[in-house]
Structure formats: C-alpha cells, structure tokens
C-alpha cells in the first residue's frame, strides 16, 4: 500500500516539477500513438464503410477474420514487424528498426482491425437506414461510403478512441521494435516496464498515473472537439 501512496506522491512531484524526462517521454508517447491513430483511421474507416455497403462473396469471412484480428497479440505483431524491419529482413535497408517509425508501424497493424471492426458495426446500422434512399438516388459506391463516413462521424469517433486506448497502453510490440532506447524510443509504457524491472515501483506507478491522466485528457479533448453529447442524438 505504501508503494501506491509513494507512487501518487512521485507522480504529483513529476507533474508539478515538469520533469524534463517525463515531458519528453510523454510527448513521444503522444506523438507515436496519435500518428499511428491517424494512419490507422485513414486505412480502417474506409474498410469499415466498404464492408457496410458492399456485398461480395468473401464478405462474411472478411468480417469474421477482421473480428478475429481484433485479438491480435501485440507481442506477435512486434515480433513479425521486427523480423521484417531488422537489418537482415526484407525491409532492413530502410533502417527503421529501433526507431519511432517502427513503433508507429506496429501500432497501426494492431489497431487497424479494431477500428475497422467497430466502424463496420456502427456504419452497418446507418446503412440499413440509408439503403433505400441511396439506392434510389443512384449513388456510386464512393458516394455511399462518403455519406456513411460523414453522417456516422460521431459513431466513428468511438472507434477511433478505442483504437487510441489500445495503442497508447500497448507495450509488447513497441518494446520489441522500438527497443526502449533512452531519448530515442522510450515511451511511457516501456518506461514503466523498465522501472518495474528495476524495482523502482514508485517511479513506475508515477509514470502509470501520468499515462492514465493523459489517456483521459486525450479522450476528453476529442469529445470536446467532436462536440458529442451536445447537439442532437448523432
């Protein structure tokens, strides 16, 4: 119990003094995860919309596969990305291993299925509402997807936040591909793992509280920007 109090005290101290290392690590966490989130959304949201509007032979299989990928073990993703990016791997020439870019790639792979799957669930309902009208108006596939993505943007925010939550708290994959190098690829989660390993529980807890605070702050910020719960039901 004393570890917990000490952790809270440490967290407050780190926050109040704006500890330089902490700020650096936190900003890197944010940068890596937000970049991964933007890229993942750009890939996953159109996939969700496509699965909602398009009937094709392998559709059911694709959706089931996507849902299964939501449970993708991050460590395995990290391992595969490591093998691909390592010096001797097929993409080794780009020199991406142990860089923030490698961490972003791993996080994108982890959260794309999650965002696409949640987006598909939300847009499927909207599509069943819109179906007759959009067919009647002779819309093209692209126009249908655009209408769903735009009118379903509030629901898609939830999908994006779920993706953010999974990416920001992820440690297994980015530890492998990033290497937890100080001042280079160390982020909050890998720092927590390191401090815990060193036995410095107070520091680890302090970083943990900062991580939680940041996750809450980002969620609130996105809600305020998206103005959910303010106007109308959508």
């Amino acid at each position, binding site marked *: 119990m004393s570890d917990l109090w000490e952790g809270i005290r440490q967290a407050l101290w780190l926050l109040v003094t704006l500890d330089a290392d902490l700020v650096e690590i936190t900003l890197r966490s944010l940068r890596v995860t937000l970049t991964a989130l933007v890229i993942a959304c750009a890939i996953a949201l159109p996939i969700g919309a496509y699965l909602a509007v398009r009937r094709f032979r392998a559709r059911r299989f694709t959706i089931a596969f996507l849902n299964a990928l939501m449970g993708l073990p991050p460590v395995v993703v990290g391992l595969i990305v490591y093998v691909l990016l390592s010096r001797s791997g097929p993409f080794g020439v780009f020199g991406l291993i142990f860089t923030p870019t490698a961490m972003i790639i791993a996080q994108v792979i982890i959260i794309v299925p999650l965002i696409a799957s949640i987006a598909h669930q939300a847009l499927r309902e909207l599509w069943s509402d819109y179906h*007759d009208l959009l067919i*009647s*108006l*002779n*819309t093209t596939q692209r126009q249908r997807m655009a*209408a769903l993505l735009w*009118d379903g943007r509030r629901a898609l925010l939830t999908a994006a936040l779920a993706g953010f939550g999974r990416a920001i708290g992820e440690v297994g994959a980015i530890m492998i591909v990033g290497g937890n190098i100080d001042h280079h690829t160390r982020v909050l989660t890998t720092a927590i793992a390191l401090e815990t390993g060193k036995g410095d529980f107070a520091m680890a807890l302090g970083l943990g509280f900062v991580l939680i605070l940041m996750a809450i702050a980002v969620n609130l910020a996105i809600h305020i920007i998206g103005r959910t719960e303010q106007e*109308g039901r959508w």
Partner: protein
Amino acid sequence: MSTLFPLTLTRATIRRKGKRLVGPIDLTLEGQGITIVIGPNGAGKTSLLRMMHGIARLSDGDITWGCDLDTARAAQSFVFQQPILLRRSVRDNIAYPLRLRGIPKADARAQADEAGTQVGLGAMLDRPATFLSGGERQKLAIARAMITQPALLFLDEPCASLDGRATREIEEILQRAAASGTRLIMSTHDMGQARRLADDVLFLLNGHIHEHAPNPHFFDQPQTAEAAAFLNGDIVE
C-alpha cells in the same frame, strides 16, 4: 422529359423467398397526370412502385422506358412511406441529390433553401432533420425528391399517419408539381385522396392489376365486384 414514357411492364414479377410479392404485371403508362395505386394491405402496392423505380430486383419479366435505363433512372425520384432522413440539417438533406450531381455546395444550398421554403420548411432549414414532425419529414422528403426536377415522381403512401392539415398541404404540393408537368405515380389508402388527386386509378389485388380506369369512371362505375366492394369499404381478400 417526354422521352421517358411510355413505361412498359411485361410480365414483371417480384418473388422473395419463394413468395410472390407482385406480378406478373402487364402495363403501359403514358407521360401525363397522376396515377393512383390502391388496394388492400399486401396487395403489392409498394412492391409495384419499387419495381417500376428499379430499386427492387425483378424476378421475372421486363420493364422498358422510352429512353435508356440510365437516363430513365436519373429522371425519377422516390418518396418512401417512412421518410428516410440523412443525419444532417434540413437544408443539407434537401441539397443532397444536387451535391451528388456535382453541383457546388453554395449553389446546392441556395436551391435547397428555395425548395424548402416552397414546401413550408423555410423556418427550419438549419435544424437537424430528425427534429422535424411527421408531416414536416414527409415534406422534406418531397422537397428533396423534387429538387432534381424529375420527370417522374413515385410516392409510396406519403400521407399515411399524417393528420388532415398535413395531408392537405402535401396534396397541394403534389398538385403544383403535377401542374408543372411532373408525372406522379402514388399509392394511397385514403379513398378521398385518391378521388381528389387521381387522373387514373390502378386497383391492385393479390399482386395483380385487377382494374385500371380513369378517375371519375373508376369511382362511379367500378367494373369488377372486388373493386366495388373495396370502394364500399368492405374487406377484400
């Protein structure tokens, strides 16, 4: 505009899951006036309209227009029994078909404002569409359907579950549209409305056209016993 017609249905049939919803229908419609489709529930009114419009796939038979199918599809609109509202403002709902045709946003919105005002939604253009009442929703749907200036407008019981005043307002809108040359094909349950609006009447029973006659003639001298019974308010099955 006049090239759209004649609309010809040849043994057109829709079956779903082994059940025949409508047909086989043989029918030719010319390009003038208001056709009212009546008949008991389940007679196939909605299926007939959807089939003509091309949003329900034909199981059998053929539908041809006076022009090619793409031109025909672009020249018609459909108003559903339950208005389908986009999760947008009233203005953007009405402007949507124009936006689909690549008309710039400002221009489309200006036209939508005018169309909305014409159907009496002028004060609500900025509101989310889902805030509208039942009658207002249907007016929105009609304004949206009319904004592309279609040669042919389908309406599937547009006044079902609306009160007298809303019904009258919608009938006025429809009569104005018909007077300006839009061909209307509309189903209804309201015999008074059918009498007021129809140029000709299609009486559907069990998925078949039981009788097709011009307006006063059909109501005054129905040719079949079932039509007579239906007009009397008897239950026809």
